[in-house]
């Protein structure tokens, strides 16, 4: 087995995950894309474990640990998504903009102190 094949597949999977994280609006789809990226990393870990013939099986054991951490991450992530849905009735990432800072038209370069910015800043809508 040439190491190039799994390495290229892992790179492609990771890029697809990057696209999903950036392009999707639904929070659950973003979590799915994160899982794709984690799987790309797992494929790399297994490949290099097999290639380097690690006596401690570091790569494969770390893959198991990454799978477990991914399970924990997705559980907490979905719990947070459900909490957001209960408060907002929406899990649309583009509408969760409470921390959005409106572009200050009078001062585009941001040379003013932050305190005045907060007082002069208007709401997003």
């Amino acid at each position, binding site marked *: 087995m040439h190491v190039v094949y*799994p390495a*290229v597949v892992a790179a492609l999977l990771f890029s697809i995950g990057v696209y999903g994280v950036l392009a999707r*609006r639904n929070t659950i789809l973003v979590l799915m894309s994160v899982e794709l990226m984690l*799987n790309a990393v797992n494929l790399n870990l297994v490949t290099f474990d097999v290639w380097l013939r690690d006596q*401690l099986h570091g790569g494969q054991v770390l893959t198991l640990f990454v799978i477990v951490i991914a399970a924990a991450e997705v559980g907490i992530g979905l719990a947070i*998504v459900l909490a957001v*849905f209960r408060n907002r009735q929406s899990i649309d990432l583009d509408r969760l903009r409470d921390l959005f800072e409106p572009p200050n038209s009078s001062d585009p370069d941001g040379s003013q102190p932050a305190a005045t910015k907060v007082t002069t800043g208007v709401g997003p809508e």
Partner: protein
Amino acid sequence: MTPALWPPTAQEIVFLLLSVVAVGSALLVVTTRQLVHAALWLVACFGALAGCYLVLTAEFVAWVQVLIYVGAVVVLMLFGIMLTRAPIGRTADLDSGNRVVAALVALATAAVLVTVVIDGFRSAYTPLDPGTGSAKSLGGSIFRTWVLPFEALSILLLAALIGAIVISRTDIKGRE
């Protein structure tokens, strides 16, 4: 002595077919218009990746992948979809406005990673000897070398479980 890239061995052909399935269904996960279909394509992608692990002789990791990802994580995702009253059927608003920028960033990432990886591992070759990925050999190294991370994982799982309960069940009050 590295064998030539062409012709591929039987294992490489099986691996390439499985990885085509994995990459194709991953693409469908990030492009499909139906939320439930995305979860089902995720199952296909993870299953094909488990097949890839089997070809790479990482037997135990492959079955853990089937058990945890296909069996548990996707079920959790489907629960999330059901609990958030997601629209069933085709919906147009699954993608945000920055699709083009996202595609550009992803293409740039893919170009950089694939170029570096091909350049770096062009001559790397490993014959596949089964046996190193069995449950017994992994168990030996987990319980001899990697005991401390293993125990730390139990604390992580405990924290995640308690966190999920606290965040999702706000109707439970603390002691008065």
